[in-house]
């Protein structure tokens, strides 16, 4: 496999060429499809909630569900995920209930991270998902450190980390890839090359023709896969995960894709890209393509599709209603978890704030 070849399974008519045998059984194929649709509908609902002022910001993965879901699907329970802000499908695939993710989005008292992070910056020890932070690329190097520890401790874990094309310019990518290459660590780097970092197009992001070729700089392989082709993504990432698990070292997977929508609900992509470009990519919608494949195999039909969407919509509505009803985190939680203990200065500051709010301060001499 060369770094410039684009791995595809689905042909232009979205059926697979004859010699292809999917590595997933029929049930798993349907589960993958359902998860992608769930992600699509969930993301759309969040954009609606944002418009209504109920969610402050959201980054949709519309058009990139295949990458998030099919890649995450290749992991075992013991494995760890180091995600970024645009892979809700991967979280769901790791078993995160929508209610729990919504608690994060609303920042309620039920949020595992206690309402401390902006929407999508989820994390869960139980589900082996690192805590997402905003500075682009940082998590890549954490994933590598985690994999290094797994190597040292002879643990079974494979680590998978997601990031965008823009992230490859940051130091987290450079140093993470470099260390992974030195020690042939069990980590899979999945880059969504969706052609833009907010408004900055790929040709201003880097001078290389592909992201995949960058792996060469670190002494391991990069693979370029059609990111709108769920089957191809699954196969490529599965192979990379297996290689990592067997001690074969890291792989950089470049998923060639496109952000159908704006960067986030704060962005207006019409300022920097042509509608025609997005239109062309929408024709290669990963869900449509995968759906056509399933239909061509006789595994799916329009009626089931409609039913699925109806069920999911109502589950999403229920989850939103439940999550939104939860109260905000308690005031005192402001001061928790800065440290394991509560040093005197934070105790004082907490006391000052609660005294103040009880109206006790300033009236004393």
């Amino acid at each position, binding site marked *: 496999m060369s770094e410039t070849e684009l791995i595809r399974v689905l042909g232009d008519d979205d059926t697979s060429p004859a010699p292809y045998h999917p590595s997933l059984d029929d049930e798993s194929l349907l589960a993958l499809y359902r998860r992608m649709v769930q992600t699509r509908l969930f993301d759309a609902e969040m954009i609606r909630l944002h418009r209504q002022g109920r969610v402050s910001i959201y980054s949709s993965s519309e058009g990139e569900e295949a990458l998030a879901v099919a890649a995450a699907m290749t992991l075992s329970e013991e494995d760890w995920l180091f995600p970024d802000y645009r892979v809700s499908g991967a979280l769901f695939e790791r078993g995160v209930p929508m209610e729990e993710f919504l608690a994060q989005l609303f920042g309620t008292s039920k949020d595992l991270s206690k*309402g401390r992070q*902006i929407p999508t910056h989820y994390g869960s020890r139980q589900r082996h998902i690192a805590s997402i932070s905003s500075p682009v690329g940082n998590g890549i190097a954490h994933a590598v450190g985690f994999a290094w520890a797994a190597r040292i401790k002879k643990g079974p874990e494979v680590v998978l980390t997601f990031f965008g094309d823009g*992230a490859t310019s*940051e130091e987290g990518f450079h140093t993470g890839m470099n260390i992974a290459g030195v020690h042939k660590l069990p980590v899979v780097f999945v880059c969504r090359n969706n052609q833009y970092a907010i408004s900055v197009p790929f040709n201003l992001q880097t001078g290389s023709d592909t992201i995949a070729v960058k792996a060469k700089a670190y002494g391991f392989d990069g693979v370029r896969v059609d990111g709108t082709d769920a089957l191809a993504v699954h196969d490529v990432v599965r192979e990379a995960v297996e290689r990592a698990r067997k001690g074969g070292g890291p792989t950089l997977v470049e998923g060639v894709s496109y952000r159908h929508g704006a960067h986030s609900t704060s962005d207006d992509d019409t300022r*920097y890209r042509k509608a025609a470009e997005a239109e062309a990519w929408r024709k290669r919608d990963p869900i449509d393509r995968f759906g056509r494949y399933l239909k061509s195999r006789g595994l799916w039909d329009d009626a089931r599709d409609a039913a699925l969407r109806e069920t999911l919509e109502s589950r999403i509505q229920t989850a939103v209603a439940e999550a939104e009803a939860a109260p905000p985190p308690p005031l005192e939680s402001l001061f928790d978890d800065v440290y394991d203990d509560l040093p005197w200065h934070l105790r004082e500051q907490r006391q000052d704030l609660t005294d103040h709010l009880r109206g006790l301060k300033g009236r004393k*001499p």
Partner: protein
Amino acid sequence: MSRMNMVEALNNGLHLGMRENENVVLLGEDVGLLGGVFRVSAGLQETFGTDRVLDTPLSETGIIASAIGMALYGLRPIAEIQFADFAFPAFDQIINELAKYRYRSGNQLTTPVLVRMPVGGGVGGGLYHSQSPESHFAHTAGLKVVIPSNPYDAKGLLLAALREQDPVIFLEPKKLYRTTSAEVPDGAFTVPIGSARRVREGTDVTLICYGAMVPLAEDVARRAAEEQIQVDVLDLRSLLPLDIETVLASVQKTHRIVIVHEAPRTCGYGAELASLIVEKAFWSLDAPILRVTGFDTPFPYRLEKEYLPTSDRILDALRTTVAA
């Protein structure tokens, strides 16, 4: 004169600055085609072309390092960091290179880069879109540090910073970007770096603040006046160098000081202010200097309002100080 909000005033200042001096270039993430995520640089690339308004790769180190290299060549780069929180990836270039280049080269080579970055909270930005790192910069010899609190000062300080021969860290309180507008001259003018502004005259207590805390302080001062507490409100505008004379003059008048900032308290800029006042005007002080600040925690998301200094918390501090 036109009515402008802070984004418009900055945009206007950038247009003027780039027109005035063809060596001025602007570089950063999304500053070109998009015109900046806050649209501060809207229209600049259309006007000045892709050779002067440069969309960079996603690397803050690359932005500052490139700006340093460009400045060595003789350009006057304006480097935008998309959020002050993302200045940390470029800290080495800012602290070890930008700030020290003149000194270490014995004045042979200088790096007059203007580094713009939105700072502060109040916009629901959470841990990584709300931080106020000004005291890191103020601790760094070789940098100048300014922070406007209104559209007029924003434009005037920007144009002043563009004439500086040294690197300037230009902090833009993002909460104020669009919340207020004011009359601002259409042409070029400067607000000198190193001069504070007396926002309101008072005799009982001095309230020292900057950036997004200034409108809040004005509001508090009005409320205090209703209780017969006359507050002298100072907007520092420039943190390094500090306008020490204006500060000391106010201390000598009121003898009582409250300092407000959003950044966490410990080793925040307020610590330096309080220490300087104690060093230089100890005998004039009639009460402990109080600090009303963000708490010593990371910046939260849902409880942001509770975290940031409020009008009530500042008023309490004023009362306590006056009563002491």
